[in-house]
């Protein structure tokens, strides 16, 4: 019933010249998304990455189990000395992420262009 979560990675350079690893998600983010969310992050070469950008543009449904996966990703990134940002959340999920406190550890931007301009 849940739409399978897909993820893929892009390497970009911000206008300021910083390398940014973009983790793009597609589908639902729920309890079944561990491999697509945490697994995809854990497969990244940690030492080479300082800035991680999460793309939620193609995500329609995130439940509390999915939010927990995002928090676990943030924990691991923080422990690795990385900064995490996100974009593409709907106004509703921007509100939900703010309510649960994720914005304290991950800056949210409306679009990729706005995120990249700030990095």
């Amino acid at each position, binding site marked *: 019933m849940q739409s399978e979560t897909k993820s893929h990675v892009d390497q970009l350079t911000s206008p300021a010249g910083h390398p940014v690893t973009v983790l793009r998600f597609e589908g639902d983010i729920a309890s079944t998304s561990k491999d697509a969310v945490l697994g995809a992050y854990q497969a990244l070469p940690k030492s080479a990455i300082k800035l991680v950008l999460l793309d939620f543009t193609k995500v329609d449904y995130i*439940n509390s*189990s999915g939010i927990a996966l995002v928090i*676990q990703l943030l924990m691991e990134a*923080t422990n690795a000395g990385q900064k995490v940002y996100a974009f593409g959340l709907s106004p*509703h999920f921007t509100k939900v992420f703010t*309510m*649960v406190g994720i914005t304290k550890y991950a800056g949210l931007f409306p679009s990729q262009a706005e995120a990249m301009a700030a990095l």
Partner: protein
Amino acid sequence: MSEVKSTTVEVRLPSRMGFEKVAMSTASAVAKLMGFPEDRVEDLKTAVAEACINAIEHGNRLNEKLSVGVVLSALEDSLEVKVIDDGKGMSKHQAKPDIDRKMHGEEDPRGMGMFLIQALVDEAEWVAGSGGKSSYVRLVIRLDKDAE
């Protein structure tokens, strides 16, 4: 509005993760018929989804022989949703998640469902069924959120 006044819609879901989306879609359709604005429909969808996930996972313990009942009652100025399972009921309050504790591994990253429900609807109450059966959560979302 007059067509949906005091109208009841019922859905029965299998106790399988993912089927909460059926309840979400139904609640969304009823709320839109009643004239709720889009942001409130989104609030309701998340609250209903989390209530159903709790019912599937904790109430019915993923036992597919049991179903989750979802009863939507469209009243004149509010929509009431009851999500019914065969569990013993849940505690009535969940503290706001502490993101710092979660980030430091001192609190389970999960466990936000009840908080989200309480935060996104106008009323939420958890009622334990007698004999450990037919427990439910009752959610209310009002058309005029500021009206008491």
